């Protein structure tokens, strides 16, 4: 391996089907993306070695020889992976709503795909829990439970159940399943005594040391370490790859989460991001500095398409279609999205994919609300003042206080206008919100760079992959006639006055990156702030589509009339304006 001085990074994400490499190099003191390359992931016979796909993805990159027989040459190699569907984890706690939920947050936050959640208060009989643990072979188990000095026997009982289950890991019985214990510190020895013979156990700090506080960091780090040491090494070629990389291989979703959290912290703003892929829908959020991730497995646009239909029913798909399509045809198209891996889509297929994406995100957001919540189990005394405050709301998710929304994944591969209406329809942003998409699909790569070169990470994130669609202004409530009157003052001195009627979506032409002052007033029944303000003065930043006004009110009522749905779908231009 040729030494490098940290000026050049080869950053690779190994997906289920595609391996994507990015070369980032510092030139004149500034990190730049030199190029990206893609190749098929090589984890199926006859090419059973992940490094083959990595080498191919790197071959198309200019910048000289980057990978040799013994690994990277003159660059630092960073890698994330989601092959085989990612990291499959089971979690357990003493109570499902307290330690069980903290364990879930730790596992999901570390990028895992949850395949089993257990607790002592689980209504299923013990033998069913054992059966489920045995049948669902995970990659790793996270056992939590009890505050430090708190519940002891219940933790040991849960450990006994795990022992009796004798769970075998997903990739074979030739190695021990990693079990991370992150519960009551006083039960560590007894838990280890029970589990060490059957499992590769390790103990870390409690995820819930006291009822009022969560401590997810050590459990997440232990998950990353075990993922590298015990899980990835059983996939072909990963042992070799482990010798090439300069830092641990992360689950892809963990790299995304790290980047989004750091971005929200740097912007000092709440953030909500959705990632809709072929088989899963991920939601990430950062509210008041608290990071959460939730995952709706098997809800997606290809492998997960029929499951979206099964979950929401045909009517909820039909309601988003701008033109009526016969039910049998809709069902057949959705079925074929699952069974045929189509590369090109007809107009009807695209419309149905849009409808599926809207419902997948809506379901994902509902699920996310449950997890992104204040810690349960804390005794709260309510006062009269609390009646008027948001502080005791059961979920952090608050669309009226979400200034940044990001769309990621296959659902956002369409036109800019379609991506924007998808975010508006599915998440219903409120008041002022900046809408972005992950245009180049490089958020995981930026996340991997964070630990080594934060400036490079932000350079890739903001300069190469995040595309600002526009700032969106949306009033709350229901109205009629004029919904918003807006005066926009551009930097060149020009002023735009516009009135938008209730039920319409419109766009004001400002340049991407241009900041403008706006003065807006809302019509009858509508407000522009949490205090039911009718008037708003703000400075906004334009995106590729300009400044978007969504005057359909909130909560969004989806009309029966196809004409209106069609008007909404066509309200925004497919492509953007020039960049400032």
């Amino acid at each position, binding site marked *: 391996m040729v030494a490098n001085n940290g000026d050049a990074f080869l950053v690779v994400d190994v997906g289920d089907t595609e391996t994507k490499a990015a070369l980032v190099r510092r030139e004149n003191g500034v990190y730049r993306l030199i190029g990206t390359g893609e190749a098929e992931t090589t984890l199926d016979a006859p090419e059973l070695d992940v490094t083959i796909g990595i080498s191919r993805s790197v071959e198309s990159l200019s910048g000289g020889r980057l990978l040799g027989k013994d690994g990277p040459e003159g660059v630092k190699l960073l890698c994330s992976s989601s092959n085989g569907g990612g990291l499959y984890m089971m979690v357990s706690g003493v109570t499902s709503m307290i330690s069980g939920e903290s364990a879930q947050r730790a596992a999901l936050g570390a990028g895992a795909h949850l395949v089993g959640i257990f607790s002592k208060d689980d209504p299923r009989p013990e033998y069913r829990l054992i059966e489920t643990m045995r049948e669902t072979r995970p990659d790793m188990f996270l056992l939590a439970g009890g505050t430090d000095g708190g519940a002891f026997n219940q933790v040991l009982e849960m450990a*006994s159940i795990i022992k009796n289950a004798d769970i075998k890991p997903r990739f074979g019985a030739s190695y021990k399943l990693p079990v991370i214990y992150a519960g009551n510190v006083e039960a560590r020895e007894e838990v280890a005594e029970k589990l060490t013979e059957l499992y590769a156990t390790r103990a870390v700090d409690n995820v819930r040391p006291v009822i009022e506080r969560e401590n997810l960091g050590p459990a997440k780090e232990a998950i990353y370490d075990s993922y590298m040491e015990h899980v990835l090494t059983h996939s072909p070629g990963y042992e070799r790859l482990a010798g090439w990389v300069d830092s641990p291989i992360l689950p892809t979703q963990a790299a995304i989460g790290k980047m989004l959290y750091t971005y929200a912290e740097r912007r000092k703003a709440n953030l909500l991001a959705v990632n809709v892929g072929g088989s899963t829908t991920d939601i990430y959020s950062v509210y008041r500095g608290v990071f959460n991730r939730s995952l709706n497995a098997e809800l997606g646009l290809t492998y997960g398409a029929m499951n979206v239909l099964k979950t929401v029913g045909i009517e909820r798909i039909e309601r988003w279609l701008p033109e009526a399509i016969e039910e049998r045809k809709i069902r057949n*198209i959705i079925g074929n999205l699952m069974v045929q891996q189509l590369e090109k889509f007809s107009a009807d297929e695209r419309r149905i994919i849009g409808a599926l994406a809207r419902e997948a995100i809506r379901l994902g957001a509902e699920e996310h609300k449950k997890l992104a919540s204040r810690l349960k189990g804390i005794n709260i005394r309510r006062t009269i003042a609390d009646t008027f405050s948001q502080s005791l709301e059961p979920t952090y998710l608050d669309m009226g206080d979400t200034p940044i929304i990001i769309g990621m994944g296959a659902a956002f591969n369409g036109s800019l206008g379609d991506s924007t209406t998808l975010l508006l329809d599915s998440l219903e942003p409120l008041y002022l919100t900046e809408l972005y998409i992950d245009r180049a699909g490089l958020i995981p790569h930026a996340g991997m760079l964070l630990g080594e070169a934060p400036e490079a990470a932000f350079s890739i994130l903001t300069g190469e992959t995040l595309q600002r669609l526009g700032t969106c202004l949306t009033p709350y409530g229901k109205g009629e006639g004029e919904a918003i009157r807006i005066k926009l003052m551009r930097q060149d001195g020009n002023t735009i006055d516009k009135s938008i009627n209730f039920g319409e979506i419109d766009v004001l032409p400002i340049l991407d990156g241009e900041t403008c002052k706006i003065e807006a007033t809302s019509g009858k029944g509508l407000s522009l702030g949490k205090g039911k303000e009718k008037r708003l003065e703000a400075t906004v930043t334009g995106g590729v589509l300009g400044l978007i006004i969504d005057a359909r009110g909130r909560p969004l009522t989806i009309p029966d009339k196809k004409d209106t749905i069609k008007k909404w779908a066509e309200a925004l231009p497919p492509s953007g304006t020039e960049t400032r």
Partner: protein
Amino acid sequence: MAVENKIIIRKTRRLPTFGEVLVKQGEIIREDTIIARGRVRNPELVELRVDQRLGVDPYNLSGYMLKAVGDAVKKEEIIALRRSFFGKSTKVCRSPIDGTIEIFSKSSGKVLIRGDPLPVEVKAHIPGKVTELLPREGAVLECKGSIVRGAIGLGGETHGFLENLVDAPDEVLTNGLIDKTHSGKVIVGGAVATLEALRKAASVGAAAVVVGGVDEKDLTELLGYELGFGVTGQERIGLTLVVTEGFGANPMNPEAFQLFKEHRSGLACVDGTTQIRARMLRPEVIIPF
């Protein structure tokens, strides 16, 4: 959809557990030859609160147990007994099933009894020759033939003689084309099978239907529920279904249609098992020569 014509087909036939292999190296076997036989763990697990039945504290239960973990028990056999009042009062706990004591929890007073292992066997599924023995597990079989891999299927392994009921790949398979003579047959349709045709095929006892397409709505009706995931093979719809192209009316791939036509009345070994995501396993029709 894929057609592999005139190839060597290898199938590994393995028990889900260790058992006895019943065939020999080099032996010529039929599609219904039993390759190996064994016994698998019984999923039935009965939980007994023995502490409550005996009225004792869980931590004192050990002294009343007559059976230990690993012991075999018969139905109605006493597994724990408590005598009190100088033997005048007796409380017992009996096993409700034939099985083995699997778990005894001293902390909860629970005993879990697993039912006796269930017999299981694996058949050849294809005719051919045993080319390799897998000690205690099964064998690798080989035959010459062609394979048609479909888009999605329902139901598991079956076999029967091919019966082409349409003349062209774009024709519709209707219930009027099916009768009692198709019992045990592998029916080949064209572009789509109607719901009524699928029901009729099941009612006359057809082994399988192979067709270009089927409406998703009809599939839901047939199953009685929305499929959801692309993981199939365990459905009980009275036959095995292989959809070669996809949902809706899709003329069957001409190469596949021609292959079925050429082998009319010949043996077809069909498997509807599909795992679209997990292992990319597609349903298949094997035509051995």
